[in-house]
């Protein structure tokens, strides 16, 4: 079948493997296959799949003896790195990447884990937890078919040419799982908040939430940080004007040219049906029926902007009676409530608002009334805000600070800001490798500190002189992290530390200005 051959094409020597398995399943001998919920590449022989999962399971069981709360995080084998992520209790995701002969620090474990985390969070947002699905359909067909299409659609975004490019050292000045914010002046911020409040109040007494993006940057949210990250990620992947205008690629530094490689990504995503192994093989129920109704929120090019400015998609099917496309729904992490996701776009401004499914009567019809009502109330303000933000918008390179290549992460708010991608590419390989290595170190320190003294955040300061004489600097202070590469810096450490001080005072409110 098409997928099999396509997958073969991508599984070159540098292939990546990704599996999801459930430790509670297939406990008896001969039923091991039942554990597997997802495996990429799907056409890998079961024996090979088993060997990956068997090893992982063994290690998890072993390490749990010493650390029941947090078992294995990663294995560094001779030629492969295994990255573990316990997405839900006993549901594990493992990514296996091949080590590079050329570079010592090609991968950063934490960056890869963030990929696993992201795909799982998005999955849960749209479909609910994997465990709940397994409970609903103990045979596992439901979970497998959903995971398969979802993860494959997700991985499609990492395809470059015929290769899946996972985040490597070149992406050291990026942080997945964070939100990028637009910096706005007070006046614009008040206008935005005014818009948000009117939006909130215009849905009547419905407890609704909203998220506002300008280009690929977040302007406002009323959601919890976790939900914000998920919806933001989805919006940047599929909804922002950049994505919608075909051919253009998002310049957001986290996203590669998602739509630029339509042909190659279709290799993965055209696989509308699930391979044989996922249905019927160890389950005789009417699996085929289920799989054909799988909703694929990450399917490419399925969103379009309607005349009324609302974004529409047929991913969620259509209401049988009216033929109107069904509105997407998402689960909120915080309230565990199912919400309608309505997206409205005016020029560069994307407005997402979420209305509880339970509070809308008459389904789609009731919802469209609410949507129109909201639009009526906010349209004027929407225009005003868009205009104001456009005026203050500095363009793609707005957050470039000349002389610096930086990444600033606010872990408390899941917010990051970094040098624009175009500027990062000017850095030499040596600098980036050194940074990747440094970050790996910092990640380790952080997680250690977390176990040593929970609740007390570590302060950390590392400055490294790389082989190419660049300064590579990391500073961590009370939940905020700053990574920086200074290639044209002076010889002395004093100079480098001065540069950091200046940056901190100017752009971080003095958060990193100690000593």
């Amino acid at each position, binding site marked *: 079948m098409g997928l099999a051959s396509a997958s073969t094409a991508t599984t070159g020597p540098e292939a990546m493997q990704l599996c999801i398995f459930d430790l509670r399943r297939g406990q008896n001998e001969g039923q091991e296959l039942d554990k597997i919920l997802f495996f990429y590449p799907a056409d890998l022989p079961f024996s090979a799949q088993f060997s990956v999962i068997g090893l992982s399971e063994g290690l998890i069981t072993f390490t749990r003896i010493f650390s029941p709360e947090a078992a294995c995080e990663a294995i560094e084998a001779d030629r492969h790195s295994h990255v573990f992520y316990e997405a839900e209790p006993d549901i594990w995701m493992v990514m296996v990447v091949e080590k590079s002969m050329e570079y010592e620090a090609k991968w950063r474990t934490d960056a890869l884990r963030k990929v696993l985390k992201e795909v799982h969070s998005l999955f849960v947002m749209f479909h609910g937890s994997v465990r709940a699905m397994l409970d609903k359909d103990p045979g596992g067909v439901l979970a497998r078919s959903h995971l398969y299409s979802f993860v494959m659609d997700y991985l499609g975004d990492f395809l470059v040419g015929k290769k899946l490019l996972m985040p490597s050292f070149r992406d050291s000045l990026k942080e997945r799982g964070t939100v990028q914010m637009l910096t706005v002046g007070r006046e614009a911020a*008040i206008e935005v908040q005014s818009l948000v409040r009117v939006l909130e109040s215009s849905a009547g007494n419905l407890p609704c939430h909203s998220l506002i993006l300008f280009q690929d940057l977040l302007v406002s949210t009323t959601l919890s940080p976790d939900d914000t990250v998920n919806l933001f990620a989805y919006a940047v992947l599929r909804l922002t004007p950049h994505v919608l205008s075909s051919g253009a690629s998002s310049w957001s530094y986290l996203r590669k040219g998602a739509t630029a490689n339509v042909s190659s990504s279709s290799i993965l995503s055209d696989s509308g049906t699930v391979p044989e192994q996922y249905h019927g093989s160890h389950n005789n129920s009417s699996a085929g029926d289920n799989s054909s109704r799988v909703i694929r929120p990450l399917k490419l090019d399925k969103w379009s902007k309607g005349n009324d400015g609302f974004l529409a998609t047929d991913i969620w099917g259509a209401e049988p009676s009216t033929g109107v496309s069904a509105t997407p729904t998402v689960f909120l992490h915080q309230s565990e409530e199912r919400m309608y996701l309505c997206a409205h776009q005016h020029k560069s401004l994307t407005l997402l608002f979420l209305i509880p499914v339970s509070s809308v009567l008459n389904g789609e019809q009731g919802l469209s009334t609410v949507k129109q009502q909201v639009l009526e109330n906010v349209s004027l303000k929407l225009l005003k805000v868009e205009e104001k933000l456009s005026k203050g918008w500095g363009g793609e390179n707005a957050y470039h600070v000349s002389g610096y290549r930086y990444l600033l992460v606010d872990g408390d708010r899941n917010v990051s800001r970094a040098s624009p991608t175009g500027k990062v590419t000017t850095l030499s390989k040596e600098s980036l490798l050194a940074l990747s290595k440094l970050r790996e170190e910092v990640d380790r320190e952080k997680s250690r500190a977390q176990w040593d003294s929970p609740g007390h955040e570590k302060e950390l300061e590392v400055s490294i002189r790389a082989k190419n004489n660049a300064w590579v600097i990391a500073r961590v202070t009370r939940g905020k992290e700053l990574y920086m590469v200074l290639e044209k810096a002076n010889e002395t450490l004093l100079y480098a530390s001065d540069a950091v001080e200046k940056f901190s005072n100017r752009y971080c409110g003095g958060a990193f200005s100690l000593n």
Partner: protein
Amino acid sequence: MSGKASSSQLSSGLSGSGALSHVYIPYLPLRCNVPGSRGLFYDDGNKLLLSPASDQVFCWKTVPFDPMVAPTSDSLTEGPIVSIRYSLDLKFIAVQRSDQEIQFWDRGSGETFSQRCKSESESILGFFWTDCPLCDIVFVKTSGLDLFAYNSESKSLQLVETRKLNVNWYVYTHESRLVLLASGMQCKTFTGFQLSSAGIIRLPKFEMAMAKSEANNKPVLAAEDIFIVTVYGRIYCLQVDRIAMLLHSYRFYRDVVVQQGSLPIYSSKVAVSVVDNVLLVHQVDAKVVILYDIYADSRAPISAPLPLLFRGFPRSNSSSLRSNREDTESSEVNISDHEAIIYGDDWTFLVPDLIFSVSNQLLWKIHLDLEAISASSSEVPSVLEFLQRRKLEASKAKQLCLSIARTVILERRPVSTVARAIDVLVSSYSHSIKTGNYLKGTKAGKTLPSGMPHTTGPKLSADSSASRVDAIGKSIKYESSAGVDSESPNRFLTFSNSDSEEDASFFDSKIDRGKLTGAETSVSEARSSLVNNPLDANLSEQQESQLTSPAISPDEMYSFVFAPVEEEMVGEPSYLVAIIVEFLRSANLEKVEVRPNLYVLTIQLLARSERYAELGLFVLNKILEPSKEVAMQLLESGRQNSRTRKLGLDMLRQLSLHEDYVLLLVQEGYYLEALRYARKYKVNTVRASLFLEAAFISNDSQHLAAVLRFFTDFIPGFRDTSDHNTYYRILSEMNSYIAA
């Protein structure tokens, strides 16, 4: 000026009357019957009601309006009296004896002299005193105007200037300083002169519009059909067109007269009053009054026509001071039924807001019932606009505005509606700040309408500009003028300025004497060179408020709207947050400063509903401007949310509140960071024991040693303190324990 005081005082006892009207006349009239009276005259230049008797003239002050005022009298020789007016400095009395002669009395010396027409062919239509620098008195004659100046040496009048033109009749009001001279067959051709302290301005000749009747007989305009009206410092002329049943309005500019549109009339007899810049058109036959607020372009009436009512009886008056007086005198002041006929045939309307009953010799002052007016409309923003323009009962208007603002929020009206209401209040405040009208520090909300002893005396002459140095040392300038009700004899109206909206915000300045004691008072003359008398203590009437503008400051918005509403509101505070955001937007737009207390409230509201993410956005985007109060509230609200707490800490650091920052860092357990920071910013007020204690609690002997070393190195003499000894011992114990 007293109108403000007395009316708001009275209305406290009157508002319960329940009668449906927007305009009322307080029950108590000024009685001016004296034996042998030969008619009554109103001297609008001095706001005096004059009643000549056989050999003297009785004189009542109508400003401030006090029904109990006793008349003064001047002796006068016998003779016919066509009209009578005091000079503006009150030194002379002029009496028109006939259409040929005007006689003058020098009140000081008692001397008299007369001025007669030069030729028999012309006759005197009337006269008025003026504060024009060129002359002192103007005779209006059938042949034009004669301008005379008084020569104190020769003790006679000297002709300064003559303006020749045919005059059929004329209209003059002192508040506008404008004389309109009618000529022509229909008397509809007008020439106008404004004789103000700025000089003489001649208006271009203009014609009034008059509809023709079917019979082709041309109607003739009478003096009763013309009203000169001053509202918001602008001068209008209203003309009754009986055939079209319209009231045409004209606005006077320095060089042009512009017809402004027409108002319908429902009565063949129409009278006009102006109370606090609100135009009252009395439809005398229909016995109703229609109110117009000619501020914007709108010619729509404020509300439906309603009757004018008498209000208030002594027993219902709860004002202790006044009711005492009234009780003792009530036997004299009862009015009988026949006296209380609304729109009686004998009523005369005096400029701007007095009504005189000729047959009963009673004088009333007209009042607006702001409460009733504001209750009659549901259009909240326009009601607030109307109230914000009221100067006469500023305190009352302010209270009404505050209560309306509270109500709309408590009723959870749509955010957009409330936002518009807030816009009105904020822009009005901003405007009053710009024009300097807002009296800082007035505690309006706490001023009760009655029973409050006040040491305030209103000043009789307005047109002053007094600047006061308040406690903060910031000088606030109050520019005052008589405003448009023009009770001052020295009213100064710049005609050219009547165009500008600034004039609309002139106000009567009353200065709280209590506030002035100990503060430097300087009275400067800004635009006019007039003597003023800011504190007139001989006035017995108690003033209940010195408020001169109903503008509401952000602080008052907080204290009297947001804070009380927050207490009363139940359920989700998100609505109130939305309203506060709208207020901040409005304030930001008008560049009005918002005090931290509102920000603190916002934080409390957001934290209460656990909307920490939004709270973070509010702080990071500086919607809530950084201040120590805000930082402290973030720390307080952040007890449940460490992110919010950090925001508070970061804010302290960014505000360079080093001591607080260090102290809080130590409290949070970040004593090493705190030490580093303290060293950098030379904070040495935080006690060493706090750091040592924190290090001890962390149970890390290395850290404790480091902290100990730090203080030993940087604080001279630390080695000898008990802290050092205590913790040095603890440290040794810790180390020995580890070693063991």
